[in-house]
């Protein structure tokens, strides 16, 4: 389901329709007499466009529905994008992930992110003449964990090789990698429909991992105005693993899903520091096409697209490159084996400058570095301590807590796995408070941990989430908030405002209940009689609307006029004191009174 922008949603709600618990964006609207409402509505429209005349609600809804449909169609078109009739696409992926280590791969310099440039650099990192590589064995721990998560065979003996090419971001003129004898081979990664693979791939698909190798990162280049490039050697020599899949992927969405899943698996075993968003993961894709009726059994000439830094870029670049190759072949041309680049938002890949023209990396065993021998005991130890796999955990979140697959995967993916820990902490705190942790509560908690918490960072700094699942909104305080909300002791609106207050540090830790008490925020709901009085006022002069209900009661129309009901409830809500009203209660009262009183009255009138 496409998400409706919250700005639109709030406009929709303020325009006279009901607000449902849990859907209204926290916004400061003070309750005012109905007379003032019109002006407020215009004001909110004005933020979109200054001269738009007020649109009738009905028309607005229709337009939105149309837009929704249009975007839905667009989505469908994307699915069609997964295949081109008559052609088969083949993709292999190389994923480079920064390992979660303290030191660089071959020097005792510490690893860092966004520290002052060129402050963590050892002699060898700069290839100072006479300096030598010193392998840091600790780097093996996250590397082996990652390879185990990808079901690889860990090799007892592996070696380091030099891969030669000239580039300014690589001081020695070669990168040390594991070409001939990588430390892990023959793995496999399973992808499920819920991971976002293309519909054509069905319920699940397994993609083979050819090998996983350790290697050095290069320096970071920052382009400056003019022709200048600045280099930050903090990154040079940082340990990476390169994960090479077999060319077994045939749909762009599946390729993106694979990269996303690898990221999730790596963070689940604590092998990597950060994901694609933070630059800790990069992907190169090898793309080739051949005609479906090609019986030679050979794949087409492949091109490599380097340095893709988002899941969307992976999918888009593959689609663009596939279409380019097909266009070239259909025009009678030949696809050149070359390296290409992709910029976010573009529609086609571009040829990159050749590093040495035809690149021959001249792989050579590094003569300074001995073989790496990994004790099988270490492998066993790491295998037994690696915890639950993301797939199993996703299943648990769906089955035990009733979450949707999408929410479950989002929870697992956010904050490098810390968000789901936070979620568990909130649930624990809720049961300590004596709350029933049934599906209603677990789903509500998940919504808040994902979406409400997410909104906080849309406009402000980050949550400050720690690995053990705590953040600027302490899990206990969110639990207390949700506990009150579940028991209808506060409204959703108040709860959301309180969440902001906690985030901003305006509520002392553990002081949620105090804050509600002090500010008199308890939900003091209208009595039934008061609701009824409001309902009576709302139906005044709405005989035409009530007529619809009569038609339904008489069997003249098949569908219950729910829209009309909501219209009346909305009127009720606007007329009454919102902070004392619950839309559900209002709806119940309105519905009952229509059936019991208004219809009779209307019948009598007619």
């Amino acid at each position, binding site marked *: 389901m496409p998400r409706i922008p919250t700005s639109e949603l709030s406009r929709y709600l303020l325009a006279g329709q009901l607000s449902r618990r849990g859907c209204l964006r926290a916004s400061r609207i003070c309750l005012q007499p109905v007379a003032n409402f019109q002006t407020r509505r215009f004001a909110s429209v004005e933020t979109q466009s200054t001269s738009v005349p007020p649109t009738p609600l009905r028309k607005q809804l229709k337009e939105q529905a149309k837009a929704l449909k249009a975007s839905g169609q667009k989505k469908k078109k994307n699915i069609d994008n997964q295949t081109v009739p008559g052609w088969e696409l083949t993709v292999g992926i190389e994923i480079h992930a920064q390992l979660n280590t303290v030191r660089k791969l071959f020097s005792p310099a510490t690893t860092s992110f966004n520290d002052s440039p060129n402050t963590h650099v050892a002699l060898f990192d700069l290839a100072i003449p006479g300096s030598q590589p010193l392998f840091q064995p600790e780097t093996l721990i996250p590397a082996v964990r990652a390879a185990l998560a990808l079901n690889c065979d860990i090799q007892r003996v592996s070696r380091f090789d030099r891969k030669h090419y000239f580039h300014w971001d690589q001081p020695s003129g070669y990168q040390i990698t594991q070409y001939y004898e990588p430390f892990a081979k023959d793995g496999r990664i399973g992808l499920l429909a819920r991971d976002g693979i293309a519909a054509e791939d069905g319920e699940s698909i397994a993609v083979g991992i050819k090998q996983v190798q350790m290697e050095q990162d290069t320096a970071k280049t920052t382009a400056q105005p003019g022709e200048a490039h600045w280099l930050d050697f903090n990154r040079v020599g940082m340990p990476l693993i390169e994960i090479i899949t077999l060319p077994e992927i045939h749909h762009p969405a599946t390729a993106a899903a694979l990269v996303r899943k690898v990221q999730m698996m790596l963070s689940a075993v604590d092998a990597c520091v950060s994901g694609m968003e933070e630059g800790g993961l990069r992907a190169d894709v090898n793309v080739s096409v051949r005609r479906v009726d090609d019986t030679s059994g050979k794949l087409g000439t492949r091109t490599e697209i380097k340095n893709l830094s988002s899941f969307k870029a992976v999918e888009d670049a593959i689609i663009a490159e596939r279409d380019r190759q097909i266009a070239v072949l259909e025009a009678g041309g030949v696809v050149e084996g070359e390296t290409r680049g992709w910029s976010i938002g573009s529609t086609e890949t571009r040829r990159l400058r050749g590093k040495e*023209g035809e690149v021959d990396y001249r792989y050579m065993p590094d003569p300074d570095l001995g073989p790496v021998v990994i004790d099988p005991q270490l492998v066993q130890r790491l295998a037994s301590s690696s915890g639950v796999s993301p797939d199993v955990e996703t299943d648990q979140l769906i089955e035990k807590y009733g979450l949707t697959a999408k929410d479950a995967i989002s929870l697992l993916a956010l904050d490098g796995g810390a968000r789901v820990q936070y979620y568990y902490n909130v649930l624990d705190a809720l049961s300590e408070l004596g709350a029933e942790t049934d599906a209603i509560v677990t789903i509500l908690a998940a919504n808040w941990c994902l979406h409400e918490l997410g909104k906080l960072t849309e406009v402000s700094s980050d949550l400050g989430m720690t690995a053990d699942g705590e953040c600027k909104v302490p899990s206990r305080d969110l639990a207390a908030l949700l506990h009150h909300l579940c028991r209808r002791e506060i409204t959703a609106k108040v709860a959301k405002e309180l969440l902001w207050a906690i985030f901003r540090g305006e509520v002392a830790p553990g002081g949620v209940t105090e804050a509600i008490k002090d500010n008199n925020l308890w939900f003091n709901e209208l009595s039934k009689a008061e609701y009824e009085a409001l309902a009576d006022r709302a139906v005044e002069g709405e005989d035409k609307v009530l007529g619809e209900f009569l038609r339904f009661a008489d069997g003249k129309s098949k569908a219950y006029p729910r829209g009309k009901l909501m219209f009346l409830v909305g009127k009720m809500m606007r007329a009454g004191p919102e902070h004392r009203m619950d839309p559900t209660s209002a709806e119940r009262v309105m519905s009952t009174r229509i059936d019991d009183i208004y219809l009779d009255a209307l019948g009598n009138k007619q």
Partner: protein
Amino acid sequence: MLTRRRLQALRLRHAQRSIPSRYQRRQINHFISKEADPVPPIPAQRTPFTLAVKDNITTKFSPATTTCASPFLADYNSPFEATIVQQLRDLGAVVTGKTNLDEFGMGSHSVHSAHGAVSQEKDGYSAGGSSGGSAVAVANGEVDLALGTDTGGSVRLPAAYCGVVGYKPSYGMLSRFGVVPYANSLDTVGLIAKGVGRIREVVVRRGLWEVEDGRDPTSLGRKARRRIAQGREGYGGEDVELEGVRLGLPVEYNIEELEGGVRDAWVKAAGRLEERGAKVVPVSLPTTRHALSAYYVIAPAEASSNLAKYDGVRYGRRSEGESDAAEGGVLYAASRGQGFGEEVKRRILLGSYTLSSEAMDNYFLKAQAVRRLVRRDFDRVFRLENPLQDEQETFDLSEMSEEIPMENKLGPAEVDFLLCPTAPTLAPKLEDVMGGQGVLDAYMNDVFAVPASLAGLPAVSVPMLVEGEERMAGLQLIGQYWDDARLLGVAEAISEVLGGKR
């Protein structure tokens, strides 16, 4: 720091190197930088001695430059000092200067230098290479000890040509940290002195052999050093008797190119040692004839990789005017083309080719296979086992050439050391080297030196008189891995017999 003008002058000399000027021939030109006011050793109780350092070994001060005789590093100051220099300073060394060499250690006559060719003082003979400057400094009596590097004979050959002692240790014994690499898997730090005694003093008696350097990944671990030494003699520094020592004469070393005078001196020396109680037996090292080719595949391959960092951006100068960094072009080619000397460029090309995907299997891998066979040849003839091999290999007679007499195939061939010439000829005239000699002639000089390098074995060259010529050649003694202490002990005894300096 060199001035720009001096830099230009260096470049010019480098470019004109192939045409030796009268000026150059008069100069012995063995120092690249000399310390006017050497820094005395800090521990005052040590007996100070003077030390010359080959200019591809980094020094941080006195002198501060490390040029590798390359224009790329003409004004290069290393931010750190090589371990071996520090160790020797701690033992009382006073560094008096940095010596001339073939650029990055690539050459056999010390002529491929940005600073011009080195020559021996008398009569303009080749000093040998690549540690020619160090050998001449010792031969002239200017320093007590000199550091060189030996990748395929670069310490032993100049020692032989200059009539001094040159020692190449077992691979992994002396730290390479701070040695600008030429071919890492072959590079060793070597020592040159007038007599074996001084070298033995430093390496064995003062315990350099024992010290592991954590900054050099190829430096043998402390425990391994001790363990291997337990199966070896001589690490106590005691005198070694020649009586009963078995010396093998490799029959394959009697090659066509071996000069008659050198051959006679070799045979005569063997005879004199036999008189002193040593047992001399012929042995066969069948892979010897392939060793030189293997060396000239492996070493340039590693060199081409090691020298990739010299690109004109961080080292040396960006060539002006010819920058072709535009679309599809390459940024470094012009700078590298101008910056390196001919011999270095030749080896980079050679190495780049043998590592290329089309040639890798036929050259680099074959050369590595030959390298293993060379090591196996040695293991077969030495009485001591090679501690680097997990299990003792068996040797198949059918693998040996039919020309080899049966008795040599089967043994008695287990020996303590191999005795052979260091080089097939006496030092040639520098004029001849720079004028007419081809590249392969120069490579040929390394033929007896490279097998020990390929196998990582210790070897020492001591001077021996070539009668008739009244000049000195080198007699080489090669030992099993980590048998350095006994090797130096026996070498000292042999020098005494041959009438050299202790």
